[in-house]
């Protein structure tokens, strides 16, 4: 199994290498990077490229590690017992399997995505140490041990909102998705909008990277914003000349709302343009 990117997802060499190392050595791969650089997409693409099923576990601030393994539905059992149902006797029918259990049970190898692990409580990664290391866990209610038939490929994404514990990090491989340079960006756009007029692309990238250069932006536009913006430009059928007519940053690029998502950023940007106009 080797991952080399896919038709709809452009990877860099270092990312390929990290993914392949994680697959070969069967370690979880921790992915960080600016928002909108395709961290979550990676797991989907790896699963698609290798032809493996994908199990997704999206983490929220209330998520507990236990929920990824299994949950004991005590409330239904309680209710059933009050109603005198027959299945109450079997505790197993109240065990709800979590994402990791499903992946462990899978006949083939699989890909598990643990998305935005930093959203969860600070102890969350620690609670998963053994499960991710040995790929097995114990179900107290039924006294059984669940072991992975095939070790799944685990991809974990983080937005850096919390620091992850050292013990956890030591078990992972780590990759930081850098913001793509102009060349990579071009190939990413090519993949998403084949046959885009080269002139439009050139002008759009020009505007885009210029925008990223503005100091003091709260949220710099990223790859996904660029793709959205291009989609809008195409939908509105805006000719490249409009982008070029910006005359030394003196005009607001069309549909800039797709690129700047923060009110303060838009204000800052408009102020800068106003100043540029004024100085001419």
């Amino acid at each position, binding site marked *: 199994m080797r991952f080399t990117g896919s038709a709809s997802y452009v990877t860099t*060499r*270092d990312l390929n*290498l*990290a993914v*392949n*190392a994680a697959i*070969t*050595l069967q*370690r979880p791969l*921790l992915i*960080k990077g600016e928002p909108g650089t395709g961290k979550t997409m990676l797991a989907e693409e790896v699963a698609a490229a290798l032809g493996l099923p994908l199990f997704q576990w999206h983490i929220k601030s209330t998520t507990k590690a236990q929920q990824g393994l299994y949950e004991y539905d*005590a*409330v239904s059992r*309680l209710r059933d*017992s*009050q109603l005198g149902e027959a299945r109450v006797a079997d505790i197993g029918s109240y065990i709800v399997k979590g994402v990791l259990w499903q992946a462990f049970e899978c006949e083939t190898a699989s890909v598990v995505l643990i998305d935005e692990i930093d959203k969860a409580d600070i102890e969350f990664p620690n609670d998963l140490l053994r499960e991710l290391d040995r790929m097995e866990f114990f179900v107290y209610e039924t006294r059984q041990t669940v072991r992975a038939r095939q070790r799944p490929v685990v991809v974990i994404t983080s937005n*850096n*909102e*919390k*620091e*992850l514990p*050292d013990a956890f*990090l*030591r078990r*992972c*491989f*780590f*990759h*930081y998705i*850098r913001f793509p340079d102009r060349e990579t960006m071009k190939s990413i756009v090519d993949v998403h909008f084949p046959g885009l007029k080269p002139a439009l692309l050139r002008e759009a990238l020009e505007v885009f990277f210029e925008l990223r250069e503005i100091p003091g932006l*709260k949220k710099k536009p990223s790859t996904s914003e660029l793709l959205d913006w291009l989609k809008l430009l195409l939908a509105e059928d805006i000719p490249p000349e409009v982008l070029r007519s910006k005359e030394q940053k003196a005009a607001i690029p069309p549909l800039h709302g797709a690129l700047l998502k923060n009110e303060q950023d838009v204000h800052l940007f408009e102020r800068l343009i106003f100043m540029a106009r004024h100085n001419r």
Partner: protein
Amino acid sequence: MLIDFFLHLKASRLPVSIKEFLTLLEALRQHVIEHSIDDFYLLSRTVLVKDESHFDKFDRAFGEYFKGVEALPGMEVLIPEDWLRRAVRKHLSDAERARLEKLGWEKLMETFRQQLAEQKERHSGGSKWIGSGGSSPFGHGGTHPEGIRLGGRSENRSAVKVWERREYRNLDDSVELGTRNIKVALRRLRRFAREGAAEELDLEGTIAGTARNAGWLDLKLRPERHNAVKVLLLLDIGGSMDDHIRVCEELFSACRSEFKHLEHYYFHNCVYDHLWRDNRRRHSERIATHDVLHRYGGDYKLILVGDAAMSPYELLQPNGSIEFNNAEPGAAWLRRLADTWPHTIWLNPESEHSWQYRQSTALIRNLLGGRMFPLTLDGLERGMRLLSK
């Protein structure tokens, strides 16, 4: 050889562990990569470094350790002229080759051979010898317009380029400090507690209660969990603090959204009899410091932000304040604050190594028992760790 590499990383104060090193060796044994230094760089970074803020450190350490390995495969081997000619053709444009004539091809080769013979050790910098980073015509990364890049560039993007460009410099955690980073650091202070109205179903309690009731449903409710930490923020404003306004604003806005119980007041240079809440109305609406001392209980955590740059008189003498006649010296007030709130720290936007040159900074630091931290991400972390104890 790799053990040396590992120890070198360790000596460069990268947090690498033996387990990770063994994993790297295992990866090499399983042929995850071909024999290429570029791939080795990427692989070792993936396996050994777990935080992008260490990437820069790693790049430097890697560069130091492998300097020369890529530059020339064995100095004593005489490089065939053909090969070198080809290399030059590949890397130089026609115009550049024309310029190369300035020195003359024959002359260039001759000098090169001569230097290879004379040179005994690896060399970097300087303007004559073969090596890296200098302005000699030979070696790589130099500035000489007629230089030859030795070692040949691999077809992929050269990794040397990556680690020498030090692209991750601005991710190093002593540098960047944005609202978001501050928030992350402040999270250390979070103390979750359940207080207030009971609105959430306490599942565990319900089950236990019901079991105790022999099966009769006994619903238990409990209050929602929230951050219960209380913070009192005192900010120095005006004068020498004007340079640091942006950082302080960011700190302030980050604090604002992070804590439910956050109170803030301003002072100028040092705390005296009065504080104020709104800087525009500082003369009309001020509050006696004694009132503040009594209003907020000892469970508040006090964070003072200021550059501690003032004349020592402002701290030590009555009437020393530059603004009004204070009956008690600033030091007395500071001591009073520290006594009222045992959890007190001072954040200083000036860089840490400049503190020793200012008398007032040293004085305040002593008054607070050394609890002064720089307003960098690292300093903030240390401060918060102390406060959360």
